[in-house]
């Protein structure tokens, strides 16, 4: 692809008070805490990174096995193993700052109080942006349950909003009856943006050799095969909200990214795609810029605006 327009293009994007050099962010749980991928790519080439989900206390996570590849994707059952907010602040935050990495801290709690506490600690440490994980599948307490009921969700986000003044992003999953109600609650509670989707509840079954019983992994499905679910979810919540949306779910190439912009995303995250191609996010940043030059889009808003015109609107069922 020849570069027809030699001028630089503006790929930048704003999510609340968070400025992104471009709309490409790496997703929580797939990129570590800081500069883990610097052997594979230029970290500064992308808009930012989201840290692994961080809890108030360190977590051990689930027993092995935690990973199962399935057709078109991956089921994981990590169980939020992480070093906890204190160790993050002490050991990881300095690395992020030294390396000048634009980052968002993904947080998860077992109670509203925990979310509030972690958010306060983030505020005290002048962290610019947090992503509240309200959608990790299969947790007995916390996380997903808060993301299912719009009333308790509203209260929870409101409480966090009170203590955190940076960019507040709320991450939703598709395992809910009424996506739009949840999204509206998040917006009304004062969040700056919604990110979606988290992994989808799934199970892999392995029948034992003698057909006596079975082993299984229950966890979250990510990767290519959830893309149609993610696009649908984002399209649905976009109709009812006007805060920015950070879209994700199986994005693996430029065209996928354009699809997410079209249905309502203002930025996107790359998760499982990094496992397939460790420098995928960098490559997409490069491809997006080149694409905009070749096709004469001076800034990202113009591209997104152009993509977002629907020319067929129908409501299917079966």
């Amino acid at each position, binding site marked *: 692809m020849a570069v027809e327009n030699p001028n630089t293009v503006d790929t930048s994007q704003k999510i609340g008070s968070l400025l992104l050099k471009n709309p490409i962010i790496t997703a929580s749980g797939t990129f570590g805490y800081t500069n883990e991928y610097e052997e594979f790519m*230029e970290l500064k080439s992308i808009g930012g990174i989201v840290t692994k989900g961080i809890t108030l206390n360190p977590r051990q996570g689930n027993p092995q096995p935690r990973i199962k590849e399935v057709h078109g994707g991956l089921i*994981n059952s990590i169980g939020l193993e992480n070093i906890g907010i204190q160790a993050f602040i002490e050991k990881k935050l300095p690395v992020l700052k030294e390396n000048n990495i634009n980052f968002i801290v993904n947080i998860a709690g077992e109670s509203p109080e925990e979310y509030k506490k972690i958010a306060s600690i983030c505020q005290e440490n002048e962290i610019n942006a947090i992503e509240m994980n309200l959608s990790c599948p299969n947790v007995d307490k916390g996380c997903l349950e808060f993301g299912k009921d719009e009333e308790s969700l509203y209260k929870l986000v409101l409480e966090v909003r009170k203590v955190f003044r940076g960019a507040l992003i709320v991450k939703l999953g598709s395992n809910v009856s009424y996506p739009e109600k949840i999204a509206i609650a998040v917006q009304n509670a004062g969040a700056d943006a919604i990110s979606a989707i988290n992994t989808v509840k799934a199970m892999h079954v392995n029948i034992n050799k003698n057909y006596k019983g079975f082993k299984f992994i229950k966890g979250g499905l990510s990767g290519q095969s959830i893309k149609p679910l993610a696009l649908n979810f984002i399209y649905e919540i976009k109709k009812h909200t006007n805060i920015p949306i950070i879209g994700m779910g199986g994005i693996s190439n430029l065209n996928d990214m354009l699809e997410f912009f079209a249905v309502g995303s203002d930025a996107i995250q790359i998760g499982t795609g990094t496992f397939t191609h460790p420098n995928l996010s960098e490559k997409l940043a490069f491809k997006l810029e080149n694409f905009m030059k070749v096709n004469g889009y001076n800034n990202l808003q113009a591209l997104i605006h152009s993509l977002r015109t629907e020319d067929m609107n129908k409501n299917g069922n079966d």
Partner: protein
Amino acid sequence: MQNLKDQNLIRVSKGPFFAKVLENREISDNIYKLRIESEEIAQNSLPGQFVSIKCADLTLRRPFSVAGVRENSFDLLYKVKGTGTEWLTNLKTGDITDIIGPMGNGFSIENKKSLLIGCGVGIAPIDFFMDVLSAKSLPYKSIGCFRSKYKNAKEYDYHITEDGTSALKGKLSDYLEQIITETATEKIFICGPNPAMQYVTEYALSLNIETEVALEGDFACGTGVCMGCAIKIKKGNALESAKICKDGPVFKGEEVVWR
């Protein structure tokens, strides 16, 4: 933004490399040797480290131990197990692979009377380790244990086969005591199935012989970020979380919590 390739050159990169296949053939029953051209990986790899290959359109890369290196190429030994390795068998000389590495930590290279043990395709990192110790003229003896005779260029000091198609018929456990005594082993390095590694580790511990084991696990990222391969290891009396892909795959035998 500059050309990405140029940027790659100015930092030590682990890939992805688009590397040419030099050779790919079945050397023993269901086991293939794959030789790939890559100066970077050849020059930076240590025995016990691995590379991850993109196979077909699979979401996850597949990890394989480096089994030997030359100036600008390296070898893998792989056993055909499923979709990914099946796909690998179709690679032809000249095909381009998408590969990252070397990943993880390798075996310690020490001046001790070492016993190197490889069981089945676990022989891969042992082959490489033998080359490295030989080149440094460090003392070692090697054991290869297989179901049936393993046809490879390498000669092991002890070649054990279950079906007796080699000099020593039986299992590793039938000969281990004798070999350790014979060779006055000071340290053991082993790669193979978990039960074999556990057996050797525990036996060696009882003799106060140090061990290093190369573990396997199901990897997602293979780079240490996803916690998919996390296990608990013993550090004194405490249990700590470690990632096989990043903190391993080589661990001190006594640190491993066998399941």
